[in-house]
């Protein structure tokens, strides 16, 4: 099946391992992700001001591209799959705002009047985790060639994958979608209390200290619960929990390093794909020594 794929800017720059492993893992499951031929920034943050039309143009223009791809037969459905939690959240919330407010929708249409087509509001925004859940976890399990046996994985959701209600991929208080995936891959799921806590998000730009505090708390909790590795679905979370371990170590000398990987990398690994496709050499800190120790690579 051909499904429209919206990668977002981060998956093309600092989170290439997310993009590479996603395409490989999806392909292994027979899901053909077709990257939109024209796409722009998701808009990064959904506009919360009621009168703000301008900030909706970026996300909705992407959804128009999906509709155009469907109309010209490039993809099968009026549906787009996003990976980055921020892109997913922004695209979906903007779509909802567009459909809920006819006045706003009219203004958006007028502001996009140089487009060849008019956006209908009918595109469905989906996270890859949802696509997998809909297909059935047994399909994922059936594809596993090298179960992640003995690997203790703490699933980290962060904020934007679960909130607000009606947008999130699962129940915000008691999610299981990430856990279900990990179980189908043969991994041992490690539950921990901070899996839905914020990673500090964009404070990483100007208040690194705040991010160091939060990362320390989240990662120490995961380690205390026995995790070998933390899995994420968001490039900003990956950056704050991974790259920022340098700052965490400076501030908290007792902290010891733990690898952070994208869930699609674990999928690619369990599907028996090579390092070109798991892209496990691109994460910071490097997860490969641990995976070697566990006999997984």
């Amino acid at each position, binding site marked *: 099946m051909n499904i429209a794929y919206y990668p977002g*800017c981060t998956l*093309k*720059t600092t989170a290439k391992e997310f993009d590479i492993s996603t395409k490989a893992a999806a392909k292994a499951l027979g899901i053909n992700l077709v990257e939109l031929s024209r796409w*722009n*920034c998701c808009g990064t943050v959904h506009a919360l001001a009621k009168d703000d039309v*301008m900030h909706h*143009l970026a996300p909705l223009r992407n959804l128009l591209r999906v509709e155009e791809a469907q109309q010209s037969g490039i993809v099968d459905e009026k549906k787009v799959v996003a990976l980055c939690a921020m892109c997913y959240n922004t695209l979906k919330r903007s779509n909802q705002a567009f459909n809920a407010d006819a006045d706003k929708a009219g203004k958006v249409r007028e502001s996009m009047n140089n*487009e060849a087509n008019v956006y209908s509001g009918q595109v469905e925004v989906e996270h890859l985790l949802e696509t997998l859940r809909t297909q059935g976890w047994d399909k994922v399990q059936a594809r596993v060639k090298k179960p992640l046996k003995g690997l203790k994985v703490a699933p980290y959701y962060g904020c934007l994958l679960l909130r607000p209600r009606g947008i999130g991929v699962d129940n915000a208080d008691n999610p299981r979608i990430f856990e279900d995936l990990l179980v189908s891959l043969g991994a041992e799921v490690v539950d921990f209390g901070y899996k839905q806590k914020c990673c500090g998000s964009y404070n990483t730009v100007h208040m690194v200290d705040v991010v160091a505090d939060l990362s320390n708390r989240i990662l120490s909790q995961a380690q205390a619960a026995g995790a070998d590795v933390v899995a994420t679905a968001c490039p900003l979370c990956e950056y704050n929990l991974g790259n920022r371990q340098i700052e965490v170590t400076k501030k908290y000398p007792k902290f010891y390093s733990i690898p952070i990987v994208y869930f699609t990398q674990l999928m690619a690994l369990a599907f028996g794909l090579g390092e070109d496709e798991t892209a496990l050499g691109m994460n910071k800190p490097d997860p490969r020594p641990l995976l070697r120790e566990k006999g997984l690579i």
Partner: protein
Amino acid sequence: MTENSNRMVTIYVMGKKHTVPADLTIMKAMEYAGHQFKRGAGCRGGFCGACATIYRKKGSYKLQGALACQKMVEDGMYIAQIPFSPAEKKSYNLDDLKPDASTFLEQYPEIARCLACNTCTKACPQDLQVMDIVQAALRGDITTTAKLSFDCLSCGLCAVRCPAEIVPYNIGQLARRMYSKYIVGPTEHVEQRVKEVEDGKFDEELNKLKAIDKPSLKKLYDTRDMEA
């Protein structure tokens, strides 16, 4: 003389009304009306980007962009010249640049403010996908940025219309430079020509031109070979 040549239209140049022949470009119509171009005119052939103009048609709310030497006048057109756009242009050493997204953001951090409103695309007289150029740069896709911006004349209309104060033509230029240097690399014919220049292949001809008197030089210029 065409059948239309006697038809006159009314245009407004910076608010002042003029009646001009309908079969003139904006540039020729302004000269017909008595304006003399000291800036804002260059090749007169649609290649140099010096004659950026904004206009509004009668009864329309749309502010549109054009090159004065290419766009024909229309009845009721309001016209203003934008001969120069005050844009910040970075100087950099191409050898020191890294060919990725971080370079675009370091040189021109304002590109991160792009709202995808597409106003730049609407303003472009070359019908380029200007917003896609900026967006491709944001994600470090140098090849797409360079290719989409290939026909850019740096007229400046996108820059003066952008609500995020981005200068898209500088982004395109940076991309094309990095594309040539890091992605395509040096081409054989250019290297060959550089060698010919260095070996003095053209010295004799240039020395001849340098020694020639002004009237003969003018005559040579007037009778030179030109592309159609």
